[in-house]
């Protein structure tokens, strides 16, 4: 089936088998390996991408369902040089160890801060409830996001 969509700001047009999953399309066919497959059942959030700005589980999304939509992956929120403000906060606060869950968290946090630039701790924990980390115990992840929540930033700076 033909699909056309915007991926990280660029137009993409392809033929895909109808059963193709979005994560496989992006990782294997398009070569963007930043998104990780972990639980493969929508629970862990490692596969998080943004669909029109909203977080989704790319492991359980059909590629055909992003036709005419905008998809953002971790590659799309990482600047060509250096790190985004979200990524910097994670590094500064020790919000990652092995890093496998991290792209998923960065995507979720990027979406959260776009919707709610100054979330409370409760709002942060609620939003990130569906992103699992086996290394950090979450404390430093929450601290990293809280540090971002108290910043005053220009709109485009995410």
């Amino acid at each position, binding site marked *: 089936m033909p699909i056309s969509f915007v991926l990280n700001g660029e137009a993409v047009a392809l033929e895909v088998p109808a059963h193709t999953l979005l994560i496989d399309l992006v990782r294997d066919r398009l070569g963007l390996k930043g998104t990780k497959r972990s639980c493969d059942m929508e629970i862990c959030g490692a596969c998080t991408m943004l669909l029109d700005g909203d977080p989704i589980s790319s492991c*359980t999304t059909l590629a055909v*369902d992003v036709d005419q939509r905008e998809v953002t992956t971790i590659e799309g929120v990482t600047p060509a040089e250096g790190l985004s403000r979200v990524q910097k906060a994670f590094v500064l606060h020790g919000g990652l160890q092995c890093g496998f869950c991290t792209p998923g968290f960065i995507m979720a946090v990027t979406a959260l801060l776009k919707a709610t630039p100054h979330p409370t701790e409760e709002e942060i924990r609620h939003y990130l*409830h569906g*992103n699992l980390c086996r290394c950090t115990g979450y404390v430093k992840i929450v601290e990293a996001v809280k540090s971002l929540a108290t910043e005053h930033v220009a709109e485009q700076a995410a």
Partner: protein
Amino acid sequence: MFYSGGTELLLAMKMRVIHTERIIDIKGLPDLDIITSTEANEIEIGARCTHKNIAENSLIRQQVPALSSLCGDVANVRVRSVGTIGGNLCFGEPHADPPTMLAALNARFMLHGPKGIRSVSADDFIRSELETVREPDELLTKIVFPCPTGPVTYRRFKHGERPSVNVAMVWSVDAGGAINAARVRVGALSSRPQPLKAVEEALRGCFVADVSLAIERVLPAALDELDVNEDRHGRADYKRHLAGVLLMRNVEEAMSRTENHR
């Protein structure tokens, strides 16, 4: 098979527990994602509304905030982005949040099929686990319920993605401060939400101040009558106990909200 977000269907297909040659994407159908109030003072929610849509909708936040916060807590943020209330209802997963509250709200579900349109009450919609009365060629289009006039409350116990036990309650209170009708539904214990009839009867005509006492008398027997499936969420006596605890938390909230209104 119809799908919109596919958060249940696609997962089941990946796990090879559902096999089908074709799935039909209903995201292109117009007018299935509208939330509105009617002249008959009812609220209509389109079946294709996502949990996110409902959680953020100003009409729902105003009229039934408990439903807004329920939808804001379904599964995780990714499921809420694309998962719909219609999909949740039609999949018939017993460990779910919306069916319990919609049964307490006395909702009806509109099913459109080749033979016409029919309405099924929330209490009658689920036939058994993962099975509803919807025929394969029927589409759930709308959820309708009377705008509640008293407190609507919801409590659940949840460890992972799905609730182990949940309880929803809706009161209508008369001007004198007595409860003229109450609907209590306990969900996730068996295939469908179950009424706590003895509790509902104890609440009828009861003054808000006397509610705890009235319920305490009938609650143990009412909990014993619940149909409970034992599974990884817990054994029967544990789940019954939780249902009782959750009910009393609902009652506490409903009492304080009623008192604050007077």
